[in-house]
């Protein structure tokens, strides 16, 4: 497959222009299309407010999330406080990502050349469908009907397990939390801790139900649960001939891939089977080994709150007599070059999937990950999912169901906790606000008629750009005083403000506005 299709960022970006983005080096490509609907797990199938309401009604879920995010938040805060150069590290992380994105094409081509020179094979996948077809074809050509998997967001994003299953290939998740999700036929709800919505008791019950030879006396205790999973997985590891992984990062100058993990199951997958297939989003590449130092400090402290994660696996091509005999790298676009084309929005591609922004987000903590629909939940998911899929609404017409990703940028109070936590300083609140404007525009284009909200926003701007009109509107609003005359507060307002007064009283407008008081008490003053 040619690499020339790939939305190489230097070209075909009308907003910014090639000069700002670095000189073009490859082919005559254009920006790639958005991630297609109907495949993978990037699309919200319901508007966020409705999905959130259901989640909020589940008290067990609220307790599980509140407890788990609280524990990780405290660990992260302690791990970060140990370093007196944490802010400099964040700045370095941001700077490396920004400069890498500005010439992503160069680094990707270098990565391809180095991987190939060291005995690996590189495949370029425009979108989820292509990536799934490539991986399925590679597994088929080995004759295997089973693969072991390292925890990976990219393969969740494209719905690889479902695609393999459709081809008669069983994918076995080996990360403990992913295994819990798979056994429970559940969906991940967190980037790092996909089963964060489950507590120990629920996991024990699941193991007793789904693991054939598990000890019936199994206790709801972390070590026992981990040992049960270990026994369950061991046979599969020894049997597997093909492994599929993602990658936390890749180093272009030597064609080296890296996976950072806690359990060691990833390393089993990366070293035991004959064939290793790695699916990686194109934004994960770093130019050189010296960049690694920054990210190996930022990532563990931000994600698990550890100084260093237990297992960091790095591999370069294939090595005779050691590890897999065949290595394939699938580089995935799936909407990334489209996101890259927006010079501000592209900052979301700096994300290293540490999940710190989820753990500090007051919205995520209360609704959980499923409310976001996409496998990228929380603050970064509310930015990234609609960026990758586009903001179109409703049915996709392709049989893939409806997508409501345009509701995600509004799923935030813009409190800013995510920006403070982000190790690469992604200004998530500003990106959300930008996407809101894009969502409003998309809705306006789709309907051709202005929405009631658009009309009231335009009216408010008209009134507020003139002090005389504003003062007149204030007197009109004081009619509302009559409604709250006895109590000094308003308990029921008409739609859309009824959404406010369902749970909160509204203030009764005062007898005199500030500006009236001012002109009465300071008649001689401007």
């Amino acid at each position, binding site marked *: 497959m040619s690499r020339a299709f790939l939305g190489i960022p230097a070209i075909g970006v009308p907003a910014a222009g090639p000069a700002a983005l670095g000189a073009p080096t490859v082919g005559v490509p254009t920006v790639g299309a958005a991630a297609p609907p109907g495949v993978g797990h990037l699309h919200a199938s319901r508007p*966020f*407010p409705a999905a*959130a*309401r259901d989640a*909020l009604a589940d008290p067990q879920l*609220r307790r599980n999330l509140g407890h788990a995010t609280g524990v990780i938040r405290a660990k992260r805060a302690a791990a970060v406080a140990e370093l007196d150069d944490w802010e400099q590290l964040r700045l370095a992380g941001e700077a490396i990502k920004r400069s890498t994105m500005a010439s992503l094409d160069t680094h990707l081509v270098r990565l391809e050349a180095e991987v190939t020179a060291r005995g690996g094979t590189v495949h370029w996948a425009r979108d989820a469908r292509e990536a799934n077809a490539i991986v399925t074809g590679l597994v088929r050509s080995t004759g295997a009907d089973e693969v072991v998997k390292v925890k990976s967001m990219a393969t969740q994003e494209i719905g690889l397990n479902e695609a393999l299953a459709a081809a008669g290939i069983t994918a076995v998740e080996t990360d403990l939390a992913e295994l819990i999700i798979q056994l429970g036929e559940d969906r991940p709800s967190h980037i790092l801790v996909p089963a964060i919505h489950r507590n120990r008791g629920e996991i024990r019950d699941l193991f007793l139900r789904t693991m054939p030879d598990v000890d019936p006396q199994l206790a709801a205790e972390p070590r026992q649960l981990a040992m049960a999973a270990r026994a369950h997985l061991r046979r599969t590891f020894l049997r597997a001939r093909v492994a599929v992984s993602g990658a936390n990062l890749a180093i272009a100058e030597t064609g080296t891939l890296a996976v950072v993990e806690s359990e060691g199951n990833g390393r089993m997958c990366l070293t035991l089977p004959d064939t290793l297939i790695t699916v990686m989003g194109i934004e994960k590449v770093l130019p050189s080994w010296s960049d690694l130092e920054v990210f190996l400090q930022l990532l563990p402290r931000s994600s698990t709150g550890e100084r260093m994660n237990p297992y960091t696996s790095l591999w370069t091509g294939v090595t005779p007599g050691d590890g897999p005999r065949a290595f394939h790298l699938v580089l995935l676009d799936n909407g990334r070059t489209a996101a890259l084309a927006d010079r501000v929005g592209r900052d979301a591609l700096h994300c290293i999937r540490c999940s710190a922004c989820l753990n500090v987000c*007051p*919205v995520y903590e*209360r*609704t959980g990950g499923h409310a976001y629909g996409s496998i990228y939940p929380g603050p970064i998911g509310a930015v990234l999912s609609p960026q990758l899929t586009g903001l179109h609404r409703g049915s996709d017409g392709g049989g893939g169901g409806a997508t409501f990703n345009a509701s995600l940028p*509004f*799923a*935030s*109070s*813009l*409190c*800013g*906790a995510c*920006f*403070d936590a982000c190790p690469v300083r992604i200004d998530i609140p500003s990106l959300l*606000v930008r996407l*809101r*404007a*894009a969502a*409003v*525009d998309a809705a306006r284009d789709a309907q051709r008629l202005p929405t009631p*909200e658009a009309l009231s*926003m*335009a009216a*408010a*701007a*008209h009134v*507020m*750009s*003139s*002090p005389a009109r*504003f003062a007149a509107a*204030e007197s009109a*609003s004081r009619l509302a005083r009559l409604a709250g005359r006895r109590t000094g*507060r308003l*308990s029921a307002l008409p739609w*859309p403000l009824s*959404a*406010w007064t*369902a*749970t*909160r*009283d*509204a*203030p009764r*407008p*005062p007898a005199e*506005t*500030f*500006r*009236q*008081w*001012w002109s009465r008490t300071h008649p001689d*003053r*401007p």
Partner: protein
Amino acid sequence: MRIALFVTCLVDALYPRVGQATVTLLERLGHEVVFPAGQTCCGQMHVNSGYPREALTLVRHHVDVFEDAEVIVAPSGSCAGSVRHQHAALARDAGDDALAVRADAVAARTVELSELLVDVLGVEDVGAYYPHRVTYHPTCHSLRVLRVGDRPLRLLRRVAGMTLLELPEAATCCGFGGTFAVKNAATSTAMLADKMRHIVGTGAEVATAGDASCLMHIGGGLSRLGAPTRTVHLAEILASTAAAPS
């Protein structure tokens, strides 16, 4: 010092006593307050709801009104935050670089009340008297957009007669978020419920903050619950004296 008051549209229309307290306090400290009469709104609701073009009209108007002021104070972390962090960027995005330069100049002279007192006027003890049990909620935009840090607490600790009670998980959002409170009302209310639980748990009579909007949200919830705690803006506490208690 001659200080221009940007009272904010919410305070003007719904909470005039917050503006009055700001004037009373600054005049008591010996400063001259002016109220540029053309002022209306910072446009933050428009930007944050996805209407940057409509907001730009308000930015232009705001810059016209406040351009000549030496220092501008707003009794709101959120509105001061919008002036400082959104105005010039909006103009720049719209390709109006001349307006962006003017907006930057206005932003550089705009402060929130606690910043004005501590940084510009150099006072922490404003001579206030407020004999109540009070807890302080540091609003998100004061904390993470303006980075006011502990300035409001430094001012509150000098208030005579007052007992200051520490609010658990103080830095967590109350769930207001402008139109978020209406568009995602269920999630907003869940956040508010936790904030109210912490506030009521302190045993405070009064919950205070530097933003009338967040206080409207918290106060609306507390009043609906019939909770014993009421909300009072930071400016009202600092304006209160033994001779003229608020």
